[in-house]
């Protein structure tokens, strides 16, 4: 459950990260590939080497979607409807991977924000990313 304060905090953080969406997104993906090599199997059609154009553009896409959701968390199911369909019927990424990616996103945020990634911000972000992942997998079955 996200409190009003937490929703505001999350919206603020993601808004401040939109200018560096590419870097944060690519960083999180690279971390996931390094720690959880099985996740690379979903990207055999892309060049996912560090700083590759594919990696940067894909990272940017993901972060912008997360940032968009953060602007109105109450409406996540509406905002994510097209992505729900995409993940359920086309990408069919096993949802356990969403947890792995979320963890790596938290690490990327910690590296980027240092001390500003306080325990309270961490808690709020973890809750938001869990909710995001849950909504994303809603149409799977």
């Amino acid at each position: 459950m996200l409190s009003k304060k937490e929703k505001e905090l999350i919206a603020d953080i993601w808004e401040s990260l939109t200018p560096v969406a590419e870097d944060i997104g690519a960083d999180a993906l690279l971390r996931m590939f390094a720690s959880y090599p099985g996740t690379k199997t979903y990207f055999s059609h892309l060049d996912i080497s560090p700083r590759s154009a594919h990696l940067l553009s894909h990272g940017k896409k993901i972060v912008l979607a997360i940032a968009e959701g953060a602007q109105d968390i109450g409406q996540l199911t509406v905002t994510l409807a097209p992505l729900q369909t995409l993940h359920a019927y086309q990408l069919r990424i096993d949802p356990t991977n969403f947890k792995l990616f979320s963890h790596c996103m938290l690490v990327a945020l910690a590296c980027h924000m240092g001390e500003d990634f306080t325990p309270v911000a961490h808690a709020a972000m973890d809750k938001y990313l869990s909710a995001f992942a849950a909504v994303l997998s809603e149409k799977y079955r």
Partner: protein
Amino acid sequence: MVQWTDFERATIQDIFSKMDYETVGPAALSRCLVVYPWTQRYFGNFGNLYNAAAIMGNPLVAKHGQTILYSLERGVKNMDNLKDTYAKLSVLHSEKLRVDPDNFKLLTDCLTIVVAAQMGKTFTGEVQAALQKFLAVVVSALGRQYH
């Protein structure tokens, strides 16, 4: 037995040799209690854990955080025999403390985040993978004596 690459050994030694146990330990444990509040169930006699500020300022939490980190140091010094290193602690957590072993991962995830925040850019994906592997083996050793 776990196989460590030269990179992994060097990375783990490096991270822990540079670490300030007095701040990282408390930071990791208190973060765990804030981010995953149900873990507070094991700390009923630690006093005030009512909110994030209370947890972060709680001296018993701080002291226990340090204890945990000094225990991790033993693992860093015995990377080739983590199972035996943590056998006694595993029994303690299972028989006496009755801690659900799933909680160990929550704590190590928070430790990873604390280290990441401190190391910033130098905490690369490869360094993260090495630290997570080490912590995962420690967690596994701690869960081994449960039955």
